[in-house]
């Protein structure tokens, strides 16, 4: 089975901190994604990557950056965490455009 692993289930960080969310997939997938999920807003795409060192902005990239130095790992970085970035963050990967995406368990981030 495909496994997408997010490094933390729960995180509490202070305003202004630099925050790293890590995601690793074990099936050699080309595409990787970061979404945030908020009640009533569904899943909103932050960034995605279709190859190593490649990245594309999603719908809400402001305040975030990403890194994909290795195929299996896609990191989301909050440069200076703010309270409005308190959310559930979901990482996903997929083999191709026809393939379904596989999701990690999510990281619930609270910024205080």
């Amino acid at each position, binding site marked *: 089975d495909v496994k*997408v692993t997010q490094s933390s289930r729960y995180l509490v960080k202070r305003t202004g901190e630099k925050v790293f969310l890590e995601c690793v997939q074990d099936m050699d997938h080309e*595409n990787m*994604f970061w*979404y945030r999920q908020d009640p*009533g*807003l*569904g*899943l909103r*795409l932050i960034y*995605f990557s*279709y190859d190593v060192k490649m990245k*594309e902005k*999603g719908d809400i990239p402001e305040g975030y950056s990403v890194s994909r130095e290795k195929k299996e790992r896609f990191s989301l970085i909050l440069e200076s965490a703010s309270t409005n970035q308190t959310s559930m963050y*979901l990482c*996903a990967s*997929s083999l191709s*455009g*026809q393939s*379904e*995406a*596989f*999701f*990690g*368990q*999510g990281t619930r981030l609270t910024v205080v």
Partner: protein
Amino acid sequence: AQSVAQPEDQVNVAEGNPLTVKCTYSVSGNPYLFWYVQYPNRGLQFLLKYITGDNLVKGSYGFEAEFNKSQTSFHLKKPSALVSDSALYFCAVRDILGYFTGNTPLVFGKGTRLSVIA
């Protein structure tokens, strides 16, 4: 730009009755369509997808969905609902035109909360 609409925030159905969760989409080219389910404090789980071929797609846990190109819809259905089906359901679309001319991700709807009452 591609988009997905799930017109109902909440669907309530009695156990044993058929259920329908609605989804409509908008794309420039042709769509790849997906349904996912999310249980509390969990990530999303894949249910089924439409890529090409038969308009009626069968998936996990007895769910099925019908692709209707003229109505740009991909409604999720199940003949007999179970209490354990209660969860949050997401429809998602990827634009095939975008896939070949560039790289496009899955775009999700806002989700529909299904509540099955015993």
